[in-house]
């Protein structure tokens, strides 16, 4: 305690039993909450992107169909890619704020307050 002021960085942090944290249901939940969003959403975005690239490469007639005025399907699909990128970004941020950050923060607090310190060692705080 007394040399808190001396040590600048992580030296003051209590030792953490990371495998115990990793096994804990709270962490498993955080991990699956993260993965069940990022994997399918990113997968869908990449499929949508490569679908668009394939259309642009192999479906010229379809892409050249005028929709209104001189604006054709290709133009709209391209702008749709921009729009979906913005939409997914916004969606992920709100998901992270609602579902990921609170869980991560709670775990971080618990760890930093030595709830997961190895039983044999005396905790610093």
């Amino acid at each position: 305690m007394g040399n808190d002021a001396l040590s600048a960085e992580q030296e003051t942090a209590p030792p953490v039993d990371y495998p115990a944290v990793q096994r804990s249901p709270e962490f498993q939940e955080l991990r699956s909450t993260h993965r069940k969003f990022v994997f399918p959403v990113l997968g869908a975005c990449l499929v949508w992107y490569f679908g668009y690239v394939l259309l642009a490469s192999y479906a010229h007639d379809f892409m050249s169909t005028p929709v209104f005025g001189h604006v054709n399907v290709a133009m709209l699909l391209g702008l749709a890619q921009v729009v979906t990128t913005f939409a997914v970004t916004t969606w992920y941020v709100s998901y992270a704020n609602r579902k990921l950050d609170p869980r991560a923060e709670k775990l971080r607090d618990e760890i930093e307050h030595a709830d997961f310190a190895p039983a044999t060692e005396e905790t610093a705080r």
Partner: protein
Amino acid sequence: MSFTALTASAAASASTGVAAEAAPAASPGEPWLNIAIFGAFVAITMIIVFRASRNNKTAADYYAAGRSFTGGQNGSAIAGDYLSAASFLGIVGAIAMTGYDGFLYSIGFLVAWLVALLLVAELLRNTGKFTMADVLSFRLRQKPVRIAAATTTLVVCFFYLLAQMAGAGGLVSLLLGVGDQLGQAVVITVVGALMILYVLIGGMKGTTWVQIIKAVLLIAGAGVMTVWVLALNGFDFSALLENAVEVAENPAILDPGLKYGVSDVSKIDFLSLGLALVLGTAALPHVLMRFYTVPTAKEARKSVVWAIWLIGIFYVFTLVLGYGAAALVGPAVIAGAPGGPNSAAPLLAFELGGPLLLGLISAIAFATILAVVAGLTITAAASFAHDIYASVVKKGKPEPGAEVKVARRTVVIIGIVAIIGGIGANGQNVAFLVALAFAVAASANLPTIVYSLYWKRFTTKGALWSMYGGLASAIILIIFSPVVSGSETSMLKTEAIDFAIFPLSNPGIVSIPLAFFLGWLGTVLDKGTEDPLKQSEMEVRSLTGVGAEKATQH
């Protein structure tokens, strides 16, 4: 910068053409006005860099700007780093000349950011300190993995640097009317020297501010021109397209395929490029390093969100500007101007706002090169000093201050190498440099980044096989591709020497899956396992932010 790939052959042929004719008369505007505006930019940013550098004491200050930037600031800097002169001049020119196919590129570059946002940014911020190698070597064997990661970092940065410096020579002929090789060499030297100064004095903080200022100027300049072009067409995008078709006398500029739909090989080539672009961005070392300049993973997330919005909006601007240049200047005029397609945006600026707007846009284009080159240099220097010198040579225990000293020396060496390489590569086909950089990043770095963050079983052998296998396959395939030999537009500039046995210009479609496969194969064949404690620590830290590097206090 990646758009250099798009217009590189045109730029290369144009710059040699200009060297032959030395026709400054064809360059509109006032070169001295351009230089004066650029000089003002340098002066202002220098002052800011000096002020910002006062607090550069520790390695965290020098490499990571004390982790004190906000998400918004860092996001702007990322946009400034990502939107290079080539992307501004190159894409506008590509759309003006080849129509829709130019726009296809920007989509790849934008969607790529979702990989960075969803998979990489936050976890990387939570587990690393200064460089990409910090994350890759976290739970694997330090020495070999760090050396491999530093090698791929240096290779990617080197080819990016060369492309930027070579591009600077082409820009000069276009914007300042400096046509001869010697004049261009002088300008490349000046750009290199300025860059060394920025990075030496300002470190990451100074570099970041240069990138922020440049991003604001670039996006604002493009925005003003976009609104202007739309206003001239009664804010009717369809009318703008109609005018573009009329002036170009070619309705096909609205459809995909004008450039890449020529043959089956060109279509597969485009797929390959698309793959490299979309997977390369999240593995570019200088982009990854930017995530360490913010205090928390949440701010890293905000950075990417800012970057995505800024970059996305900018690409929509370039769609209008490209067709605007086709409508107001005309492809025939652009093709005949010094710099070829790269001159579309400056010519459009001249058409809209006369010499003053041209001067502003030209100065922004120069500022762009400076900012991008500075970002690459500090990344390469940090990787050498932190990963090779401090972690491998000094086994993680360098003398106090020695690491930053080595980093600064490395900056000077990299700067000089970049100047010499840039002069040597001036007028070269820079496409192969950029293709190499993206393909190397996607093949050599991305599989290992993804595996080490998400695959528990991943081992050192898998990492080394994937990184060296990805690096080697990308480089070898490029050497045997049409970019290096076999045609007048290739790097060797002759049809006489032809060893282009690989038909594609971009190796991504082969080398990226191969690197993922090698990472898996090396791991399953590895009899040993890695320390499970380290795996637990990395996973817990990456998701919760426990023990993440904090911002430094001053």
